[in-house]
């Protein structure tokens, strides 16, 4: 299981990287953390002729406040995001999801941009980005553009990025007041890809009713899925166990058409969507009510679900 040969470049700046990608076109592939690409190369499932290693591009690795939102460089290590107090305060949903991503040895090399651009439907970050209405800054030799999360994921391992275009930054908008978030996934083993996962964001109005809700599901289709039907069940309602259950049932019956694979049947995934959505919403509502003013409470127990 040794990778096929390739030409290797390790540019020091974004512009150098973009020039290389433009020059080699579809033969070239960017190398971020390598935690998904290199296994595929070792299995010889992926055989890029040219690798543009982004690990020397220091300018792409940062976590900055962006007003009261966040700006994270695409080459920021997942471990850095996991340890960042800034992220814990500004995006508790992202902070809570991090420990569910594989294992520390993977997160020490894996990057935020790498995971998002790889767009594995079972990965955690795409669903979290979708739930948080994250915006993606993409750059190429011809220019730069912002892509909203809803338009970034195009399908199984497919994104809106054009050949020669690089994801350079993600911007997470600030959480509105009286918001609560929760991340929950069911994996066979701690650190495995999830059978089903849920990233939920709820915002209450002054009277405590649900003003807005975004529930993103992972491992239920060929990309992260926004449970829009479930959101309609929540709109304007007062948080209650029965409400969370109804939203879960709606998400399971109407928002997803989950795949069957060797680990889980479609019927089992539907059941998990119903149960996990309910549990995540209960937790998110609880945090929104407790937070009431203070941005979504930092999750107390860092234990990822399993």
């Amino acid at each position, binding site marked *: 299981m040794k990778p096929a040969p390739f030409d290797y470049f390790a540019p020091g700046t974004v512009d150098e990287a973009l020039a290389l990608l433009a020059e080699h076109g579809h033969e070239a592939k960017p190398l971020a953390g390598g935690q998904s690409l290199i296994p595929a190369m070792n*299995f010889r499932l992926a055989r890029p002729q040219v690798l543009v290693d982004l690990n020397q591009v220091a300018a792409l690795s940062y976590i900055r406040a962006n007003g009261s939102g966040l700006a994270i460089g695409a080459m920021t290590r997942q471990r850095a995001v996991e340890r960042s107090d800034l992220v814990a305060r500004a995006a508790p949903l992202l902070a809570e999801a991090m420990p569910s991503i594989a294992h520390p040895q993977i997160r020490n090399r894996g990057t935020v941009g790498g995971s998002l651009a790889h767009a594995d439907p079972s990965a955690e970050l795409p669903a979290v980005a979708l739930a948080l209405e994250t915006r993606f800054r993409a750059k190429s030799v011809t220019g730069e553009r912002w892509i909203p999360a809803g338009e970034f994921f195009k399908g199984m391992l497919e994104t809106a990025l054009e050949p020669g275009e690089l994801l350079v930054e993600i911007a997470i908008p600030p959480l509105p007041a009286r918001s609560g978030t929760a991340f929950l996934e*069911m994996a*066979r*083993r*701690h*650190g*495995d*890809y999830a*059978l089903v996962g849920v990233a939920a964001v709820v915002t209450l109005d002054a009277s405590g009713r649900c003003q807005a809700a975004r529930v993103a599901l992972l491992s239920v289709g060929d990309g992260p899925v926004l449970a829009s039907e479930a959101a309609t069940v929540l709109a304007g309602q007062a948080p209650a166990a029965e409400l969370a259950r109804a939203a879960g049932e709606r998400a399971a019956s109407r928002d997803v058409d989950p795949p069957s694979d*060797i*680990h*889980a*049947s479609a*019927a*089992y995934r539907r*059941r*998990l969507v119903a*149960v996990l959505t309910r549990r995540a919403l209960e937790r998110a509502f609880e945090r929104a009510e407790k937070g009431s003013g203070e941005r979504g409470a930092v999750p107390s127990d860092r234990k990822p679900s*399993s």
Partner: protein
Amino acid sequence: MTVEPGGRVRLATGVGTQGQGHFTAFAQIVAEVLGVDVADVHVITGDTREFHWGTGTFASRGAVVAGSACQAAALRVREKILELASHELEASKADLVLAGGSVHVRGDPGAGITLGALAVKANPLRGAVRPGTEPGLEATAYFGPDRGSTASGVHAMLVEVDPETAQVEIRRYVVVHDCGRVINPMIVDGQIHGGVAHGIGNAFYEQLVYDEDGQLLNASFMDYLLPTATDVPRVETAHRETPSPLNPMGAKGVGEAGAIPTGALFAQAVEDALGRTGLEICEIPLSPSRLFELIEEAR
């Protein structure tokens, strides 16, 4: 086996080792017979130049077969030591004691002779071999029981099942085990922990999935799930020792025991947890998804 002039003991056996602690377990057997420290017994396994005969390590036979052979060789060397020492110390064999790497007359530990010194004396270069005697403190022995010995045990388990997601969590796992004479309880415990983990893997995580074209669909560790540290409970072990009459060690072997009843135990405990009439688990491995289907079918 050879006692070398330096006083250390060289022991070579035909079985190979794959982590079962043979270097230490066989050294314990020999050390006890010769009265030397375990660390002074240098064990060589799995090298056909060092020992010509033998079959191999499998079927939990290491301790039973190789262990008994090591003991037999050690007893023969001990006999040579006593023979030579009684001559050197002018004392009857019955009055001699082997301890601390030397031989001395009972009650007079100061005036002993080290095994190393005896080994030098036993070496013909320092004198012609007397007719009918053998050089060196060395012996080779073989052992093959005419039948296998039968180990036994009882496993018990507490599990909690989440009825909504069919996830199973093992609360407690108990093994009462009888593998005959235990050479090293620390190593036996380790064999049982590993066996139970292997059993749990086979019962609830691992499955080779072949499609109708004979293609193996999960030929990687991403999708062929070995149990990890968060999937295996603490295993509480208790040893019973019903010695086997078929070998001098009285040993019965333990390598595979932990992995054998786990599937049967899993099915019984999960059925008991769900307490649903009509739900019968007649297959292994299970998985949360398969268990969910069985629960739905039993409605």
